[in-house]
C-alpha cells in the first residue's frame, strides 16, 4: 500500500511520519513516535484510553487516521509536565488517588484538560458528564471527580490540599 508523509506538531515538537492511509493515529503514536502514554483499551472508541488533544478537541486516537492529522497540533500525556513540574491535573490525580492500575489515566487526564480549558469551574455533574467517554475499571470515578476538582481549584489559583492526610487515623 502506498505510503504518505504526514507532518504535525506533537507536544510542541514537529514530527514527520511515513504511514499507510489506513494507519490509525494510536498506532502511529505508540509504534512510530515512542508515545506510549495513550493506550488501546477497546478498539471501538468506547473506552477513551487513547484520548489525545487534537487542535483543541479531545479525540480517540483509535478512531482517527494519521493522514487526517497533517498540520495538526497534538497534545498527549507526555506533554503535560513542563520542566519537571507536574501539571495540576497530574498532581490532582495523585493527591486525590484518582488512579489505580494507571491504564486509563493518560486518557483521563487529557480529557480532563480539555474540560478545564472549556470550563474552569465545573460542578461534579459537569465533570461526570464530560468524562463519560473515558472508562475506568478501578476507581469507580469518585476520586477522579475529586482529582479534577483539585486541579480546577489549583488552576484558578486557590489553595488546595489532599482529602487524604497522611496521618488521619
Amino acid at each position: 500500500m502506498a505510503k504518505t508523509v504526514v507532518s504535525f506538531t506533537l507536544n510542541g515538537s514537529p514530527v514527520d511520519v511515513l504511514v499507510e492511509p489506513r494507519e490509525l493515529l494510536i498506532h502511529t503514536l505508540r509504534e512510530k513516535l515512542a508515545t506510549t502514554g495513550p493506550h488501546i483499551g477497546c478498539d471501538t472508541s468506547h473506552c477513551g484510553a487513547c484520548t489525545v488533544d487534537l487542535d483543541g478537541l479531545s479525540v480517540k486516537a483509535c478512531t482517527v487516521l494519521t493522514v487526517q492529522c497533517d498540520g495538526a497540533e497534538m497534545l498527549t500525556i507526555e506533554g503535560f509536565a513542563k520542566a519537571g513540574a507536574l501539571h495540576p491535573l497530574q498532581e490532582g490525580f495523585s493527591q486525590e488517588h484518582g488512579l489505580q492500575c494507571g491504564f486509563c489515566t493518560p486518557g483521563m487526564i487529557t480529557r480532563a484538560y480539555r474540560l478545564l480549558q472549556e470550563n474552569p469551574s465545573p460542578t461534579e455533574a459537569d465533570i461526570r458528564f464530560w468524562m463519560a467517554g473515558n472508562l475506568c475499571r478501578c476507581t469507580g470515578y469518585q476520586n477522579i471527580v475529586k482529582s479534577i476538582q483539585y486541579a480546577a481549584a489549583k488552576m484558578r489559583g486557590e489553595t488546595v490540599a489532599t482529602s487524604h492526610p497522611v496521618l488521619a487515623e
Partner: protein
Amino acid sequence: MDTNIETHARLEKLEGIGCSRKRREDPRFIQGKGNYVDDIKLPGMLSGVMVRSPYAHAKIVSIDTSKAKAHPGVHAVLTAEDLKPLKLHWMPTLAGDVQAVLADGRVSFQNQEVAFVVADDRYTAADAADLVEVEYEELPAVVDPFKALAPDAPVIRPDLDGKNVGAHGARKHHNHIFNWQIGDKDKTDRAFANAEVTVKQDMLYPRVHPCPLETCGSVANYDAIRGDLTVWITSQAPHVVRTVVGLLSSIPESKIRIISPDIGGGFGNKVGVYPGYVCAIVASIVLGRPVKWIESRSENLTTTAFARDYWMTGELAADKNGKIRALRVNVTADHGAFDACADPTKWPAGMFHVCTGSYDIANAHVSVDGVYTNKFPGGVAYRCSFRVTEAVYLIERMIDVLAQRLDIDKAEIRRRNFIQAEQFPYLSPLGLEFDSGNYAPALERVLEAVDYKALRAEQAALRADPNAPTLMGIGITTFTEIVGAGPSKNCDILGIGMFDSCEIRVHPDGSAIARMGSISQGQGHQTTYAQIIASEAGIAASQIAVEEGDTSTAPYGLGTYGSRSTPVAGAATARAARKIREKARKIAAHLLEVAPDDLEFDLDQFKVKGDPARGKTMKEIAWAAYNNVPEGMEMGLEAVDYYDPPNFTFPFGAYVCVLDITKKTGETKVRRFYALDDCGTRINPMIIEGQIHGGLTEGFAVAMGQELPYDEQGNVLGGTLMDYFLPTSQETPHWETDFTVTPSPHHPIGAKGVAESPHVGSIPCFSSAMVDAFAHLGTTHFNMPYNSFRVWQHAKSLGLTA
C-alpha cells in the same frame, strides 16, 4: 521539642501502617511512563494474530495456509499440525483438564483459536489472517448446561471418549465434568424433613467477564544462542506461568524469565495461561525473533476467562421465628468447552462452601455439577476469591427469601442468625474455620447511618399510594468473605502450595529493597508493602523500593488474586521485616555494649531500656551491618520469608442500598449505597477507600448490566463494549464508605484483604434492593442483570407499567 510533636514528625516520616501514604506508582502513570506489555518494543519484534472460528461447534475439514504464508511480510502461520511434533497442540488447564492451544480437528466454541499468523507488524498479520482458508463442517451446538446433560446432547469433547473418571471423580454423562459434594447430607435432609418452614429458590448468576481495561497479551523472546526464554506477560501469577512454561516446553525454569510489568487491571482475567501466550512463545522459538501477541477487546471478552455462569438452587429450613436450621444447595456450573476453572486443585467449586455466610447454621450440604457446553472456557474469580461471589450471593438471597416468607424484617432476620462474636473461631458445618468477626455491631452502625426505620416508613407510604410513579427498594447484605488462599494443606495450584514470599535487603545507607512473589495490577503494592516494612523494621517507606513480577529477581510466589496479597505476601513481608529487626537488635546491642533484651524498639531505632538517651537508629545499624557485627554473625542485613498461612482470613461487611425505580420505564437510580467493610488492620486508608469504590462499581456493573449471553447457535452476544456494560462516570453512583476493625487473630499484623469484599458484598445488595422494591407484590427473586428493559419486563408482568 514536645514529645508528641516529635513522635508525630517521626511517624509522618516513617509512613508506616495506618498512613494514607501517596502512591509510589503514580509518578510514572500520571506522566504516561507506565510500562505495560503492549508498550514493549524489541529489535526485530514480530506481531502475531489469531485466526478464530466463526462457529461454536464444527469439524475442521481442512486448513489452507498457503495464501497467508505467501503474503509479503508474513513469517509463519502455525496450526495444530505444526504444534503436534512439539506436543503443544493441547495444554493442561489449572482444573486438571486439557485445552486445545490451536484447534485439533474440531472447534468447540465460537472464536476458538485455529491458527496463529506471525508477520512484520499487526496490520500485515491481520491482513494475512484473512487469507487463512478454513473449511468447517458445522455441528449442533449446545449452550445450555441442562440441555448439555440430555442423553442425546451433542458430544462436546470427543477427545474424552471413554474417560469416565475426570480430575474430580466420576463423570456421569459425556458432557459432565464432575460432581462435588460437601457437608452432611443425611443430617441436612433430616433437618429439612423436621423443619417448621422451608423455602426454595432458583437463581442464575449469569456469565460475565472481568474485562480489565488492558486486554491480555505477551511478548516472547527466545535467545537461541543462550537458550534463554524471556516472556513479558499480562499475568497475575508470573511464577506459576514460569513453571507451566517449563512443563510445556521442557526448558528448565532457570532458563525461563517471566516478567509481569505494569498490568492494566486484572480482576481474575489474567490468572490463566492462554493459547496466545503459548503461540507467541512457540513462534519466537521457531523464528528466533521476539513475537508480540495482544488480544483485541472482542477477543478478550469472548475467549479469555469468563466468570460465574452458576445455576443455583438454594433451600433453607427454619423455625417460625426465622432461626435457620439447615441450608441445602444444588449448583449446575457451566464451565464451557474446556474446564479451565482457576481453583485450588482439590476444590473444583473453589471456596463455594463459605455459602453458610455470616450465619450460624447447624446443618448444610452442597452439591455442584460441572458441565461442558459450547462456550469459551474460564471460570475465574472476577474480583473475588474462588467462587465466593456465587456463595455469598446464594446465602444473602436465600435469607431475604426466608424473611419474606415469614414476614420478618430483613435486618431483623440477620440479627437472629448471626454467628456471635464469642463464637469465633467458628467451625462452619462445611468445614471452614472462620477466624474472626463481629457482625451485629457492623449492621447496627449501618442501619443507624442510613436511618433504616425512616427508609422503611417512606417505603410503606409509597407502597400505599397506587398513583406513585416510582417504587423504592431497600437492600441489605451482611456478608462474610473468605480470602488469602491459602493454607498449603488445602490449597495448591498444579501441586504448588499457595504460600507467598518476601525478600528484603537493607543497604549500607539504611535504604532497602523488597521483592515479593505477588504482583500488583493497580492495588498499590509498591506503596503498601513499604508501609508494612516501615512499621516492622523502622525504615522510612520512602527509603524502600518494592519490586515484583520478575521471576529472575523476585522470590517464588503464587501471585495476586483472591485478595491474597495482603493476607499472604503481606504476612511474609511483616515476618521478613521482623527478622531484619531482630538481627538489627543484636547489632545495636553489640554497638551499645548491652544485652539484646535490654533494648526496646521505638519506631525507627533501638533504645536502651531505662536510658532512652542511648540508642542506635536503623540507619546507623544498617551501616554497622556491613562493617561491625557481633562475633560469629554473618555480615549484611537481609531476610526472606515464605509464608504458608495457617488459615484463610474472613473479611466481612454490612451494606445498605436504596433504589428508586420508575414503574413505567424500569429505569433505576441508586439513591444511596452505604458500605461498611471490616478488613482487619488497615494499612493505607486512602488505598482501601479506592479499592472499595472500585469493587462497588464493578458490583454495580454486574448487578445492573453485565452479561455474556449466547444465542441457540452458540454465537456469543455482548463481545464488544457496545454490548457489554462497563459503567461510565454518568451512571456510577456516589459511594459512602465506613469501617470497623476486627483484626485477624492469625495474621502477623491482623490484616485480612479488602479489594474483593465490595464486589462480593454489593451484588447481592443490589439484588436485595431490586427484589425488595417488588416484594410487596410477591416477588422473591428475579435474575440479574437489572438493566431497564428487564426491570420494565418484570414491572409489566406485575401490571405496574400501565
